């Protein structure tokens, strides 16, 4: 299952005036178009087109642009995933707008199930989705893509319900990099041995592909031939982790700046934990360089068990700083975050006096929160996080729609007139 033009569709739920109009949603910092509605695609806007090129034509095209409203998309995604989980005990949430579901049944049943899922997403959440049904995950992705392209499927394509000749014609028509798991750079190496289309790959010898490429490639071939070999990965559902992660408007290049970022996230985590009366036992900190620059990649991460269940900003900051020595000076880090896990209600187990830490006794966390609430988020902070004017890596979102489902002050307005 895959939501059509997810970000644009999420925006349209609460702003029906966007229906039938070209809509683009911009990447972090309003850099480029990351989601295009069908109307925007028809205008020839390509994925990743920079906003400064589109902006001059807004009026001419009637183009509607929105900044990435991650709060909204996260909330809509959670609703879609929860709804679809009702159709199968076996769900793998693959990304914010895609999931795999394990289902059994004969052709007619499966098609009916796919249509019911599609209808539920429309009536409950208000987003259009497409469903691809096949014996393997790779083929299910292909069927889904087909359902999206070819309107005759009505949004649901069961691979095996389509005559073999038509399936083979499709696979012969599509270049091999259109298949899940085959990157564009691999397609060059595949072309060198005469594999251009998906059909060519489906006809390849899996063992030979393993020897020439990798086990991953062999699996893709087997999956195209109908043998499932990419297992379902189930994820834990529930509120036992909090994640603070963000892309930066200006890449972070120094360990010192990363230290500052970690302090800020640790304090956000502390505030959130305190709000939900939770304490964490484990903190994970991570950072990543851009995927688009494969030459200088670095994806450091550390897992730090905390000395005791805590929401103390001092301890969380110190734990998050464990990432700092793993930062390569000079590389451009575009993303970083922390995650706190193994959450438990605070107060349930009063720590032994010995382990009660001094900062918690002095209520530093609540104090920082109180001052921040009164004088603003940038007015006070711990150590390097407390900076005047706010750190310059926070995100730019100038065309942001309201956070309709997560902020009481930003609820959708209904007109009574």
């Amino acid at each position, binding site marked *: 299952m895959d939501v059509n033009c997810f970000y644009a569709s999420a925006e349209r739920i609460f702003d029906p005036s966007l229906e039938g109009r070209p809509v683009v949603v911009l990447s972090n910092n309003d850099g480029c178009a990351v989601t295009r509605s069908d109307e925007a695609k028809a205008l020839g806007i390509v994925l990743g087109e920079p906003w400064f090129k589109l902006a001059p034509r807004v009026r001419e095209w009637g183009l509607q642009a929105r900044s990435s409203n991650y709060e909204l998309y996260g909330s809509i995604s959670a609703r879609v995933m*929860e*709804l679809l989980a009702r159709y199968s005990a076996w769900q793998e949430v693959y990304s914010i707008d895609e999931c795999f579901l394990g289902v059994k049944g004969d052709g007619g049943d499966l098609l009916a199930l796919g249509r019911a899922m599609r209808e539920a997403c429309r009536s409950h959440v208000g987003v259009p989705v497409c469903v691809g049904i096949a014996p393997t995950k790779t083929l299910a992705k292909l069927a889904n893509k087909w359902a999206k392209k070819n309107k005759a499927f009505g949004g649901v394509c069961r691979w095996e319900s389509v005559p073999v000749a038509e399936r083979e014609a499709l696979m012969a028509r599509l270049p091999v990099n259109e298949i899940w798991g085959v990157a564009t750079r691999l397609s060059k190496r595949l072309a060198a041995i005469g594999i251009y289309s998906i059909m060519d790959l489906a006809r390849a010898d899996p063992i030979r592909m393993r020897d020439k490429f990798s086990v991953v490639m062999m699996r893709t071939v087997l999956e195209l031939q109908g043998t499932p070999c990419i297992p379902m990965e189930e994820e834990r559902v529930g509120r036992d982790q909090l994640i603070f992660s963000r892309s930066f408007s200006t890449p972070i290049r120094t360990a010192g700046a990363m230290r500052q970022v970690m302090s800020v996230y640790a304090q956000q985590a502390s505030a959130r934990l305190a709000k939900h009366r939770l304490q964490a036992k484990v903190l994970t900190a991570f950072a990543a360089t851009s995927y688009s620059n494969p030459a200088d990649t670095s994806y450091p991460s550390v897992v730090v068990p905390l000395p005791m269940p805590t929401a103390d900003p001092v*301890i969380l900051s110190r734990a998050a700083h464990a990432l700092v020595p793993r930062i390569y000076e000079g590389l451009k880090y575009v993303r970083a975050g922390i995650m706190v896990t193994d959450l438990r209600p605070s107060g349930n187990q009063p720590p032994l006096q*010995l382990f009660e830490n001094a900062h918690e006794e002095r209520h530093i966390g609540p104090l920082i929160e109180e001052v921040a609430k009164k004088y603003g988020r940038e007015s006070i902070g711990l150590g390097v996080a407390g900076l005047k004017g706010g750190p310059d890596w926070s995100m730019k979102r100038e065309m942001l729609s309201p956070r309709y489902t997560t902020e009481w002050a930003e609820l959708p307005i209904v007109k*009574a007139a």
Partner: protein
Amino acid sequence: MSLALDPRVIVAGVVPWLIPVAPVAVACGYPSPAQDYFSGEIDLNEHLIQDKTSTFIVRVAGDSMEPGGISDGDELIVNKALEPKDGSVVVAILDGELTIKRLRITRTGVILQADNPKYPPIRVPELSELRIWGVVTRCLHYV
């Protein structure tokens, strides 16, 4: 003390990964005699929201539903998945805007009414010509 407070790195990797851990609570001290009877405070979500995947909260702007008890500034609980019936208070899509009206289904057609007579009703021949966004189930009215 300072040793216990010093977080140590035990795992370092290249990708962030999730650790599945079951929360375990260990009780200390004397249990309260009321504990056996306590099954949690009343949870409004449980009583006001039938299906959280399809329920949204919206805010009213305007006085067209005032006599029916829905005032300017009130919050409404809206279930998108409910089938609207005659008499339902609905959020309809009118000219690209979310608009609150009372739905009337009669033999001669469908009417979107305001409870406030100041606003004229809107008539449509068929329900299918209307775009209903959701059905209002509760009003959180300020008193």
